[in-house]
Every structure is written in C-alpha cells, then in structure tokens.
C-alpha cells in the first residue's frame, strides 16, 4: 500500500463518519445556518480529498511503507508494545492509583521494551515512579488518583 493510499483511507473514513453523523444534525436556513452545515461541508471536502489521494496513490505513488504481509507485527513490535502498555496504564490508573500503576508501567517499559535486566528495570521503575509521584502530587500539588493506597 502506498503512503498516499494510506492517508486517503484515513481521510475517507473520517469524512464518511462526519457525513453520516452530520446529516442527523439540523441544517437550519441560509440566514441561520444550523450546527450541521459546517461539519457536513468539511466532511464532503474530506471525502473528496480522500478520493483524490486514493486515485493519486495508484498512479506511481511512493513505495510501500505499511506492508501488510508476513512479519508485519515483528516490524512494529516496539510500537505495538508501547501502545498496548499505555492502554493498560490508562485502564488501571484509577482502580490501582497513580503510584502503583506508574511503577508497573515503567517496569514493563524498561524490561520489555528497553530490554534492561529485571532488577535494573525494577529499581529504575520504583525510583522514577515514586519520584514522579512526589514531584506531581507533593511539589506541583496535582491531584492524582489514589486507587487502593490512599497516600
């Protein structure tokens, strides 16, 4: 798949989504445009841009950058791991609290992505997690989720 086509898919998808949902909004009249007019117009333009880039992508577009083939997952392992771990962090942040979640998150990143040894990863995770908690919670007085441990 060419870069142009990759982009066109995103634009088309967003444009179609906008088109479908903005048609359900009031359009108003010319002297009182409703809330649906602007998103509808933009969605149509997005769809047209997407079609334009899809066509252009088929005419000598740049070489593939996202190759959906065997080994696809291996090529983007690091990115997938980071995204997955971050999603887990978001899910566990409020139930477990910031301190525990940040230490677990950092440990997973240091060990599984940065490839540090277990004890090094654990030590850095505890130091950085606790340090960041002190910095944000105590120094900047940022309200952070307490979760299971009301510190």
């Amino acid at each position, binding site marked *: 798949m060419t870069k142009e086509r*990759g982009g066109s898919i995103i634009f088309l998808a967003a444009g179609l989504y906008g088109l479908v949902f903005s048609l359900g909004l009031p359009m108003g009249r010319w002297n009182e*445009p409703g809330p649906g007019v602007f*998103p509808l117009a933009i969605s149509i333009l997005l769809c047209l841009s997407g079609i334009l880039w899809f066509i252009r992508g088929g005419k000598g577009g740049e070489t593939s950058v*996202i190759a959906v083939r065997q080994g696809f997952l291996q090529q983007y392992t690091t990115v997938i791991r980071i995204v997955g771990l971050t*999603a887990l962090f*978001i899910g566990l942040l409020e139930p477990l609290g910031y301190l525990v979640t940040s230490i677990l998150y950092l440990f997973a990143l240091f060990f599984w992505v*940065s490839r540090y040894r277990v004890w090094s990863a654990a030590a850095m995770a505890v130091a950085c997690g606790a340090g*960041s908690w002190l910095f944000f919670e105590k120094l900047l007085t940022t309200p952070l*989720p307490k979760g299971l441990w009301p510190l």
Partner: protein
Amino acid sequence: MDMLNNLLEGFRIALSLKNIYLCFIGCLWGTMVGVLPGIGPLAGIALLIPATFGMDATGAIIMLSGIYYGAMYGGSTTSILMNIPGESASVVTCIDGYQMTRKGRGGAALFIAAWGSWIGGTLGIIGLMFLAPFLANFAVKFGPPEMFAVLLIAFILLGSLGKGSFFKTVPMIFLGLLVGTIGMDPLTGAMRFTHGIKDLYDGIGFIPVAMGAFGIGEILTSTEESLVRAVHKVKLRELLPSREELRASWGPIIRGTGIGFFIGLLPGSAHVLSSFASYTVEKRLAKRPEEFGTGRIEGVAGPETANNAASQSAMIPFLGLGIPTGPATAVMMIALLIHGVRPGPLFISEQPQVFWSLVASMYIGNVILIILNLPLVGIFINLLRVPFRILFPLILLICLIGTYAVNSSTVELVILLTCGVMGYLFRKLEFDVAPFILAIIIGPTLENAFRWSLMRSAGSFAIFVHSPITAVLITLSGLLLIWNVYRTLRPKRDWERALEEE
C-alpha cells in the same frame, strides 16, 4: 511616550523576584525540552500548565513563553554537538553545525547560535512591541466577516507554507476542522459527535490531541531509530569564535532576523520554515556556496537567528488578533484561557499590565537564555548522556500525567493515546501534523464567524465582499488558491528540489 511608560511599568512587574524566578524556570525548562529529542516546546508547555493553576495570569504567561522561546535556543545544542535536531526548527543547523564540531569548532558554533538567537530574539521583541498594539487597534474594528476572511487566508497560507504540497496539507486542515466541531455547538447548544460521552460535551481537549500527536507520536517514531550517538565535549575556552567567524556571521544574523520576523507572522511551521529560508538565502548569497554543508558559520548563524526571530514575531498575531499561528502558541492560548485571559484585539487594551510585563520578561528571558546556553551549556549536554531507552518511558509518563492533571479525565488519556497513534501513522505516511492541530483550535472561530456573518446578512454571501478588508482578503485567498494549484501542476524548480533534499 505611552509605549515607553507602558514598557517601564512592564519592567517594574517583570523584575519582581517571583516573576524573574518564573521566567528563569520557563527558560530552563524550555532549554531542556529543546535539548531533549522527542519532547518539544508544545509538550514542554502543556506539561507545566497544571503548575500554573495557583499563579496569576502574568506569572503563568511569563513562564510558559519562556519555555516557548527557550526551546529555540536549546534545540541548536544537540544539532551542533550530536547531529540530532533537539527541536524541529534546528534541523537545518545540523547540516553545518555538526560539521563545525567535527572540525573542533563546535564551541564557536554554539556561541554564534546563541548570539544570533539573542539578537534575533531581541529585535523580534522590539517588533512585537510596536506591531502587536497596532494590529490589535486595527483588528478591534473587525466584525465576523472580517474575522472569517482573515482566518480563511490564514488557512490557505497554512496550506501553502506547510511541509509537503498544498494538496497534502489541506486534508489535514479539513480533518482538524472536523475534529474541532466535536462537542456542544456554541450557537445552538446542539451536541455534535459526542455519542453521549459527557467528557466530550466541552469539545475534544486540545492538550491531549496536541500532546498525543506531537509527544507520543514523536516517541513512537523515535523508538524505530537508533539514537546511540557520540556526544562531543566542549570546553568553556573553546566557546569563543574567531574574528573571521564573528565577521562572517553578522550578515546572516541581520538577514536571518528580517526573514524570521516576517515568516513568523504567517501561520504554519514558521520557525521551521524561517530557518530553511534563511539557510537557502545564505547559500545563494555565498561566494562559495559549494562549501555549505562542510562547516560554514553562515549556515548556523542565519537559521538560528531566523527561528528565534520567528518565535517572537509569532506572538504578534497570537496576542494582537487571538490567532495562534503554530501549535506551541495554540497551547499557550489554552493556558491563558484557563486563567481567564483571552488573547485578541481587546487583550492589550483591557489587560495592558499582562502584555507589557510579558514583553519586558522576554527581554529578561533572552539574557537568561544566553547565560544558560553558553557558559552553562555543559549541564545540558550531560542530559544527552542519558540513554534514550531510559528517557522515553519517562517522557511517556510525563505526557500521560500532564494530560490527566488538566481535567482528571481518563477519556482524555484515551484521546491522547489515539492521537499518538494517529500522529505516528501520519509521520510514517509523511503528512504534516501541525496544520491538523492548528485547525482544531482555530476552526471553531472560523465556523462561528461564518455563521454570524450569514445571520447578519440574512443569508447573503455578499457580506464577505462588502467591506474593503474582506474584499481584499477574499480576493487574495482566491489568488493564493490558484497559485497553489499552478504550483502543484508545474514541474519543481531546481532550488525547490534542492531544498526538499536538504
């Protein structure tokens, strides 16, 4: 005389211990984020927004502005010493700056970069002092049709001056405009694209979008590259340039100031564009242009001056018109709105103490930065010795907690991550993310101006060409659009191809 009195009053406020401290913190943090690849001024500003909640508006904007122009200074350090741009505006400094380091002239390059930045920044502030109030007074007469016309031409310029072709930038603008409509319609109260999620009723948070697209997106891209590089040491005595280098740098510094100041007024990646434009000009004017790329001081002096001048002049449309022309000023706008300060035509007249103390603090900040970036440059170089595989988890954590701290919302964290993945994808697909971000923040103003204009004119589109200002701007917009179509269809000229390659 009024201006002088206002400036003196501004200095009186800015020279308080508290504000000097905040200016120092902003400049220090800005230099650090400029030095560290993977985290730029946008993330740097967003991360400190929660820290400003207990401050007054003056102190908050002094600190946040310090981060913004401080990052321009810091970005040159890694470009020169490691051939890694710490900030996107310093990309072109790598070309000759690193070559100077390899020849043992890294210290001189750092000095000239800091010196040029100081001159460009200071002259930029003088321009800001004169032009921002003038522009604000002019814009007070603007109604919805004029605002619509100004924003329309701003978007077309954004498309023209963004990275890549006009027709590659425009879909990103459309996408940003669509995302900007999420939330409650301010004119009718109707909910748009919220799907019953209460956290979206106030619109999609700009900070998670910007931090995600720029912060997390940048990290995901950087983890694909090896960042194990040698860090060249620089001793204090090596900082002084030779007489020839000083003499050779004056012309580029003066020209860079002019180029950067003018381009900074335009929307888009002004500080990036200004550094490239300055480099191109210096190469064209050089007696031996073939030497560029081998360690010419002009290749450092011009671009670094230009990007600092651009960062100051970008404050003119931001403060005078309320139009942020880049992602970093857009985040500053959010921060100011949180403090109840709305940049725009009425800002300078209604809150002169905030504006003039900001101007005064910029003079102070430029002095602080030259001290931080020259004799204390060794401290920042040590930051670069921290391996990236330790830094990036910390940066990710900071992005997450910085976003959570604004509204304590996990929905915004989901938006952050989603935009991070989108930012990564767009980088891979070579679509510019900055126009997307700008369109989210300016889009609602454009829509409101359009709808209000039609309401005033009872549905007649003639209102958009009724006044001389709107007629001229709409005509210019049309001409720019035609020019962009022509530019896309005609073959690229040699200098355009060469600039792309560099």
